[in-house]
Every structure is written in C-alpha cells, then in structure tokens.
C-alpha cells in the first residue's frame, strides 16, 4: 500500500511538473514579444496606477514614492489574481483531456497557479530594482521576502481549486469570481496604505491573508521592521481555504468528467 502511495505521489508530481511547463511554454508561443510580457505587464500596471493614484489622486503614502509603494502591493495581488483567473477555467479548457484520459484532475488548477511563479520572481526583481532607484538601499537579504510565495501559493491554489470546480459545473461561478476580484482589489490595501482604513474596519485586515502579506513586506521594505507575526498570521486562513479546496475536490473528483 505504501509503495503504491509513493508511486502515486511520484506520478502526481511528474504530472504537475509537465503541466506547469506546458502552460509556461505555450503561453507566449504565438506572440512576438514572448516572455518579455512577464516584465512588461507589471511595469505597465505600475506606471498606470502611479499616474492615476500617485500623480492625480495623490494618495498619501507616508513619504514612500508611489511607484515602489504600489509595486510592493501588486507583487502579491497579481500572483493571486492572475493565478485564480487562469485556473478558474483550467477544467473547462481541458475538457477533452478530462473526458478522454484518466489522470488526477486536480493537477490542472495547481499547474496554472504554479505557472505564475516566473512572473512572481520577475516582479520581485522589478520591485527591488525600483526600490534601489528610489534611494532605498536593498541588499541580497531582501530577496528573503520570496518566502511570501508559500502562503500565497496555498491561498491561490485553494481559491483556484474551488473556483475551477464550481465553474466547471455552472459557468455562473466564473462570473462571480470576476466580481469578487473587484471587491478584493479595493478591500485590500494595494493602491492605498492601510493607515487610510477607519479603525472599526481594521479587523478585516486580519481575515485577509493578502493584506497581511502586503503589510509584512511594506513594513520590511519601508520601515526596516521585520514583523514576522504578520507573515505567520497569513497561514491559518490560507491553509483553511486550501484544505477547503482539497476536500471539495476529493468529494467531487469522480463526478467532474460527467458534469463538465
């Protein structure tokens, strides 16, 4: 039995690797600029937000240059948003594969989320480069903020599992996810500092792993304040959503091919 489990796990991870690479390779295949989009996308997003919220609306960021400020929020938001946005359709897009071959379908939403890791790393480099340009001093130890990827993957995969499965049965859920994105984007201090949130709504930050992670890296980058508890607090909620996704998949796994 245990030998069977080891074989199963090995096969599962091989599937995960192959599907993740397949997604990364095929994403930029028919495009001219190719992987350059990984750099251009966050750059354009930050430039646009910098103009609107930094230059026109002039959100107060306690003296932090808005461009770096917003980039430090986007690194977390975009991984979550893009990962879920891709993964919510992972079962629908691969219907052929699900109804005609036998494999663990949960690999699909996972692999779409993992395929966003290169983007995350590019974001990190971009963030640290523009951080240095703005008269902050980053050294290599700053790369340690890469640890935020752990709860981020848990949270994103959890939401990806839930939304891909529900979206496969009723497409309504895909639309609901789009609305949820809009709400979460504005409810999370990404384009504004958390100090703007009225005191009676502050508790919401603690329920939101994205907000906790953003607070963690902003404190580290702009105040040289290593608040480990913010990082650790993002785990329980992320883990809860992740397990919820796993349980949901375990229960409905066998029905996916019939319902999709």
């Amino acid at each position: 039995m245990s030998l069977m489990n080891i074989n199963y796990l090995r096969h599962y991870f091989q599937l995960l690797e192959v599907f993740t690479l397949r997604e990364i390779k095929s994403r930029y295949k028919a495009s001219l600029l190719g992987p350059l989009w990984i750099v251009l996308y966050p750059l354009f997003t930050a430039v646009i937000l910098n103009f609107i919220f930094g230059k026109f609306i002039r959100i107060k960021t306690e003296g932090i240059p808005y461009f770096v400020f917003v980039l430090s929020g986007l690194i977390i938001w975009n991984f979550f948003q893009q990962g879920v946005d891709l993964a919510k359709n992972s079962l629908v897009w691969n219907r052929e594969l699900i109804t005609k071959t036998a494999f663990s379908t949960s690999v699909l939403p996972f692999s779409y989320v993992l395929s966003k890791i290169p983007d995350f790393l590019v974001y990190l480099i971009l963030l640290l480069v523009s951080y240095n340009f703005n008269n902050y001093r980053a050294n290599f130890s700053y790369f340690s903020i890469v640890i935020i990827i752990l709860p981020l993957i848990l949270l994103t995969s959890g939401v990806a599992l839930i939304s891909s499965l529900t979206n496969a049965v009723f497409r309504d859920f895909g639309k609901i996810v789009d609305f949820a994105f809009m709400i979460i984007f504005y409810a999370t201090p990404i384009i504004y500092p958390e100090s703007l949130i009225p005191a009676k709504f502050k508790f919401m930050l603690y329920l939101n792993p994205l907000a906790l992670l953003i607070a963690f890296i902003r404190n580290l980058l702009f105040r040289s304040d290593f608040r480990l508890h913010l990082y650790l607090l993002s785990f329980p909620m992320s883990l809860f959503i992740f397990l919820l996704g796993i349980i949901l998949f375990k229960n409905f796994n066998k029905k996916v091919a019939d319902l999709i």
Partner: protein
Amino acid sequence: MSQPAIVINNITKKYYLEKPRTLKKWFHTIISPFEKFTVFKNFSLSVNKGEFILITGSNGSGKTTLLKLIAGITFPDEGSIKTYGRIVPLIELGAGFNYELTGEENIVTNATILGIQKSKIKEIIPKIVSFSGLKDFIDVPLKRYSTGMVTRLAFSIAVYSNPNILLIDEIFAVGDHEFRKKSIKRILDFKKKSITIVLTSNFRIAKYIFDREIKLINSFQTS
C-alpha cells in the same frame, strides 16, 4: 491462463442530462438542474488476461462509456470495477494535445498522463518518432500538422507506452492505408504478448482477430 484483467461487478451507471435553462422553466431547473439517464443497469463482465474483446452495438448503447468506466475516466454509481495492470485508453486519439506545442513536447505530456516515468519517456521518444514517421516534423507546433499526422503521433505514443490493458474506441477509421496496416499488425503483436485488448467498433472485423464479441443493446431510461 485464466488470470483476470478486468472484473466488472454488477454496475449501474447513470449520466446527468441537463434540463433546458429557459426562463419559463427556470424555477424547476434551479431546484434540480439535472435529470439522470441510465446507461448500464446491473451490468457484469469479466475479461481474462490476454483476451481480445470486441464490443459492438448501435450509437448510444454505451460502448464508449464502458471503456471510460474501465479506464477510470468516469465512475459507476453502483457496483465495482477492478482492473489489473497499466491501462492505456485510446478513446480519442490526440485528446489533450496542445496545438501550440511541438510534437516532442506533446509526447512528453501525453506519456506522462499515461503514467510513464520521466527516464522511460526519454528512452522511448526516438522509438515513437521513428514509428510515427514524423522525424522531420517533431519540432514543429502541432497546429501545423495534418489530422492524419496527429493521429499517427498519438497512436505511436500508445504503442510504446507498454500497456497491460489496451482500450481502443473506433480509431481505425483514421490514418492512411499504410499506417493502418502497421497499426493492426502492432495490435496483433500486442495480442501475442498477452496484452488484454478491448476494442469497440461498428465495422466488421475479421473473426480471427478477436476472441469474444459483446453486443450492447440500447435500453433508454431516464429518471
């Protein structure tokens, strides 16, 4: 010789049918959006190792469903199915190919789905390429392939995936004459190696090839 390969025990399989989602019927739909359709009721079958089974029956009689049940793509509502060894289902050749990726990249994905280990895949790639006769196209994206070429690639992967049980769903209607001859020869080789084969077909197949024919009969039932 009579080792079991597939044992299907008293299964019942129902499919979901979707009710029409018009506004008029919306209320009814939201309460129970699915209707069920019975494909198999108390169906049993056991296949021995090395047997070649031919499954016939009209459209909708459940030929493909039977293969999908054996392969573990879909699952029975009642009853159990036991299988012994690696199953390679050829329900539709080229299912799951990514057309932006090259032939070789697709070999890796497809072979992984069939459960072949990484080191083994590296080993069989040259064999697959030469059997398929696609040497000059293997680094070209699949979207530039003809339908026949895609079929050849998919079948070649299955051939070298080292199956114990091979499930084939009406795939002999594709590929050119020469490739079809090659495929049938290959399937007969499989039979000699006592690999279990379940083939569905509506076409006449020479009697000497298969051991047993199973005819499925329509029994439409909705509940």
